[in-house]
């Protein structure tokens, strides 16, 4: 398959994934992209949309430990709209670059929550220049029957710059080319991890 054909297939797959996203719960990083300078605190939310009867969830949040250092995590307000919750903030692995096993669940025999909302809030320290992806991994959504809810994830990006270094001059044409390639590559990576996309 030629490179052009692969891109075409992937583009079509992206359209397909986008249509699935309308029926499936989507876990995403909010904001999807943001910038920061080293030494700054970066806060990102993990949100969910289009979910029905959400009773509990669990996920890992992967990041580039050379750029970000996980500091803390806290419960978002969404699940608590359904009642009392039991939140596990997860374990920060700043060597491997993962906030491991963040989880939350409703308590007692109640129904899950519906719609969209913020699941958890994470804070990082920006320690190094560069762009770090923030990827939802090993996620599991459960409904009130303790059955798995299918989902999609959307990765976020945090670009950290060094405040002491002047911004390089960028050629717009080359930048666009590089950005196109980057987006295509990211799409492939994401679909592999979620195993829920055609690519």
């Amino acid at each position, binding site marked *: 398959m030629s490179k052009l054909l692969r891109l075409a297939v992937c583009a079509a797959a992206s359209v397909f994934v986008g249509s699935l996203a309308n029926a499936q719960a989507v876990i995403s990083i909010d904001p999807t992209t943001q910038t920061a300078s080293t030494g700054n605190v970066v806060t990102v939310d993990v949100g969910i949309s289009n979910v029905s009867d959400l*009773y509990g969830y*669990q996920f890992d949040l992967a990041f580039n430990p050379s750029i970000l250092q996980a500091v803390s995590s806290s419960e978002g307000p969404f699940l608590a709209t359904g009642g009392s919750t*039991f939140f*596990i903030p997860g374990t920060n692995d700043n060597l491997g670059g993962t906030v491991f096993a963040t989880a939350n669940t409703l*308590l*007692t025999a109640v129904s899950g929550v519906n719609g969209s909302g913020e699941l958890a809030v994470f804070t990082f320290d920006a320690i190094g220049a560069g762009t770090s992806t923030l990827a939802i991994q090993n996620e*599991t959504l*459960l409904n009130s029957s*303790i059955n798995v809810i299918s989902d999609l994830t959307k990765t976020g990006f945090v670009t950290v710059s060094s405040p002491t270094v002047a911004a390089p001059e960028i050629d717009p044409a080359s930048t666009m080319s590089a950005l196109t390639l980057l987006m295509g590559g990211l799409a492939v990576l994401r679909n592999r991890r979620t195993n829920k996309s055609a690519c």
Partner: protein
Amino acid sequence: MNTTERHEWLARVATRGAGLNRLSFLSRSICVLAVWVLGASTAFAQINHGCTSSASNGAYATTNGPAPCSNSDSGQFGGSKTIIVEDDGGSFPAIFTIGYSNSATASSSGLVLQASAVASASNSPAFYEYSVNGNGAQINNPLISAAQPVGESSWFDQFVALGTGLLQFQLTMVVTGTPTSSECVSGLTDAVIRADVFFDDNGSGSGTINTFDPDLPGAPGLGIYSSVCLGVQSTTTGVVTILAGESFSLGTELRAIAQAFAGYPYLVFNGASTVFVQNGDSSVNAKLLVYIDPLTPGAAYRDDTGAINAYLTPPSTVVVPDVVGLSQLAATTALVSTGLTVGTLTSQSSSSVPAGNVISQSPAAGASVADGAAVSLVISSGPAPVAVPNVVGKLQAAATSAITGVGLALGTVTNQPSSSVPIGTVISESPTAGTSVAAGSPVNLVISSGALQGDLNGDGVVNCADLAIIKASFGKKVGQAGFDPRADVNGDGVVNIIDLSTEARLMPAGTVCN
């Protein structure tokens, strides 16, 4: 008495033959009564029938000793009197008479009362019987020896006195027969010595007889009124209750004998014309045991005045009621109302008789006992104590058998989840094993209902502590450090959101953690 009268009197006496009246039998008695008439006016009663007696002039003599008297008793009472007869020493002796009147009666049938009299001269000059024997012999002792019927009024004899001397006159009364009831026989009522010098050689009757003569106006006299109580064997008794501090009389028909009852006050016979019994204690009623004629049990007796003075109760025995099985109070009430008392109380365990009730009694029901007798009771203290068996760890059925097998009862059974005790097995018991309890007491059991779903720490409840166990192992896989198999609720080898949410759904409503 003038000469004419004396002659008339002498003639009257002479026509009496032996000079004795046939005295009618007024009563029938088995006693021999003897009267000794003394100038010193002493009198006594002597009773030979086995019943002790006492008598004095003017008073009844009555039995006061224990019955029974014998059916063939005999008794006597009487007296003697010494008289002084003086002759004036003329050629014609003084002639005088001696006699007595007798009103002795015996109401009981079958009694014969007779009298005999003896007169003896104690010094010279001799006295001669003038008319009794008709031989004019000098009086020697006994002057009169034949038994004579004693009856209604009098008996006289004439004597001749030559000179002055003492003459002792003795009367003996004999009663024979078989009485049909007990009674006191009185005799010699107004017994007198009639000494009446009616004839002397000087015709003036100057002889002196120094004695009393109740028939002579103004003469000193002393009636002899004495009696003895004769009896048949008394076999029936009655009990008379005497009110506290009071007294009453018993008629002569009553053969009353006071007998102390245990617990009753002292009774006093005060001795009177009739027998009075006085309650010696003014605060407590007394009882008098009265022996009565067997022919008239339970009759109301009257004293001499006709007043009812005693009602005799029925025979003083009661039948012991059956109080077995009754409560102590009810048994006591039954006994007391029957006239019995409660004796010794003994406590004894019983598995069949409820605590506080009578197990047995002594004497047994139906026995005839004396009024006021004590009946001992054995009171149940309930079943004997039983040690609670150890049934912890046994299945409920086996535990129940063990409990009931020693006489205890299965109490409440409570189910309780337990992750360590198999389902259906006794977790605990109350009272604990070895405790001594009354038979039939309940033993409560706590039975394991098995592990409680979601009770990860086995504390019997599902709560945040169980979630904490999962949290501590969250994300761990089997084999990893920190993996707690309890947290792996679904047993898939990893502790994850499935375990957490599964546990979370088991939380009781309203649970709030963190």
